[in-house]
């Protein structure tokens, strides 16, 4: 494991930023944190997690796909793909790292999404173990260990030191190039892990269980509880857009007046034109739209991915939903129904 004093952390960031862009969670001045490109003066936030998830790095909200230039009857097709440079993301929490796996299973299986793959290949993820989980955290429910996040490398902040270890070749190549001292004395790290584990076990949502709904999918689908749960849903996209695993997108054409810009953007199953087809939308009521979101995460996705849930328990939707409806409430209600 590499070790450096926290007072040298900015020098450490500077060293990484010499060669490639570095993004770290920094305070946004509004009581939260967001990923910010590191530059002199940008300080690592103490927040438990960023308000927006880290999926933006690999699956940005909008992405140009292709341009069409129209000249009379001639249409020229232009590849408007943005050249992606190597970049490093530091400070990704275990839940968000897990979300990359979920996005990978969608975008990196055949047919491979070359836009996503391009960004994924250029990015190096340095995760950061949690030490102060919040009341809205429930990653344990999905078997995620907040104290041992995955990624290309993982870091711990214990006492006055930053410990960091490589987990992949990419991570090890990056770390070995930085010239930081190695250490065998990792007692502080293990002490912190033990302490965090205790905190995790005491979280208010620690007892939340992820039931296997896949065997009772029809019961889940037809459960009467959906009516009550979705009753006051506003049909906005807050939950979708802060979610690290929501992966649906729409492809839109924008008429610039002298051509067409084709881009993709995040879509939300809560929206009226989600999966719109020639005959209309298959889900007309808010109940159906609402149900789709949670069935996807708790039933359809696990059915197709060996029981892995499409939720990582980051708790962002618990904080951001305007009416405070969320996946935990859904899981509790649904759990009772499918007992």
């Amino acid at each position: 494991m590499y070790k450096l004093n926290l007072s040298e952390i900015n020098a450490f960031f500077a060293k990484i930023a010499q060669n490639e862009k570095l993004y770290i969670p920094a305070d946004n001045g509004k009581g939260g944190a967001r990923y910010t490109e590191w530059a002199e003066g940008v300080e690592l936030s103490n927040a438990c997690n960023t308000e927006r998830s880290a999926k933006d790095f690999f699956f940005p909200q909008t992405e140009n796909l292709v341009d069409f230039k129209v000249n009379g009857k001639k249409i020229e097709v232009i590849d408007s793909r943005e050249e992606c440079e190597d970049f490093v993301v530091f400070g990704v929490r275990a839940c968000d790292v897990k979300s990359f796996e979920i996005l990978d299973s969608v975008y990196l299986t055949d047919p491979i999404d070359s836009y996503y793959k391009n960004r994924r290949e250029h990015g190096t993820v340095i995760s950061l173990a949690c030490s102060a989980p919040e009341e809205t955290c429930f990653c344990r429910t999905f078997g995620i260990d907040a104290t041992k996040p995955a990624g290309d490398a993982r870091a711990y902040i214990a006492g006055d030191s930053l410990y960091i270890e490589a987990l992949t070749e990419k991570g090890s190549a990056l770390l070995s190039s930085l010239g930081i001292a190695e250490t065998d004395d990792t007692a502080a790290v293990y002490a912190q892990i033990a302490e965090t584990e205790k905190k995790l076990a005491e979280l208010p949502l620690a007892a939340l269980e992820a039931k296997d709904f896949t065997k009772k999918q029809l019961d889940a689908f037809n459960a009467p509880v959906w009516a009550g749960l979705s009753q006051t849903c506003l049909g906005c996209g807050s939950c979708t857009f802060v979610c690290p695993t929501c992966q649906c997108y729409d492809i839109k054409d924008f008429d610039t007046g002298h051509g067409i810009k084709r881009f993709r953007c995040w879509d939300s199953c809560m929206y009226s034109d989600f999966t719109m087809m020639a005959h209309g939308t298959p889900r007309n009521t808010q109940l159906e739209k609402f149900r789709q979101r949670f069935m996807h995460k708790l039933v359809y996705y696990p059915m197709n991915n060996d029981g892995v849930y499409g939720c990582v328990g980051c708790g962002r939707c618990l904080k951001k939903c305007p009416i405070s409806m969320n996946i935990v409430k859904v899981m509790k209600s649904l759990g009772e129904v499918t007992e």
Partner: protein
Amino acid sequence: MQKVMIERAAELLSSGKVNRVLGWRAGLFAHDNTPSVFTDAADLQANFVYNEFCGANLSKYLVKESDKEGTVAVFLKPCDTYSFNQLIAEHKIKRDNVYAIGVQCNGMKDVNDREKLEERCASCKSRKHVAYDELIGESGEILDSNRFDMVEKLENMTSEERFEFWRGELSRCVRCNACRNVCPACTCEKCIFDNPDSGSANKAPADPFEENLFHIIRAFHVAGRCTDCGECSRVCPENIPLHLLNRKFIKDINELYGEYQAGETVNERGPLVNYTQGDAEPSVVYERGNS
């Protein structure tokens, strides 16, 4: 309060006066209450909640609820009653199908900083219920609020500073539409921004222009009808102070066309569907402070 409200709601249900009660359902914590419709006394006893985290304005739900069979009882905080009135004025709520219970409100707490009052409550405009069938607790007075302070501060900045301020705020928009969907004044069946035939539909803030367009039009479309309930800012996941756009319109209306509070009464003509021959010319804008 909560106990009295539950008892009264149960009574209304059992007497058959109403067949549903619109209120707040307790969540996982003390601060994540969800608007909900209750139909039986046991559910009310177990799950109905009224505490300082019941910020959600229930009046918009009445657009759908009052269209259903039977009467629905609803709990309205003072500022919610303004939205309620405004919706009645716009013929969006069937008043006869609603039994409105005004409830006392001492200000709601900010979910993100639970010691503090929400911004909108710290600059509360009125503790007075402007519409109700019965009242639980006290109805207060219209307050002398400082709610335009920030608007004034912005007005006194230079044009460049204002531009920078709003770029900084609006560039965070993710276009989740929460501000629009929660707004009691936004009741179009098909919003221009969702309608592919409008030419302005868009799902993402794909360009800074889209952010400006969306937020100007959102605020403009409710200008003169916005009661300043502050829901837009409460629900914004990016904490954009959207109410400052709405308050600018309210302030301009007050200054140019006379004091007006949307939702105060149900039969007044709104300022944008009204005029006088002596109205100010648009050039009045050029004559103001900083450019």
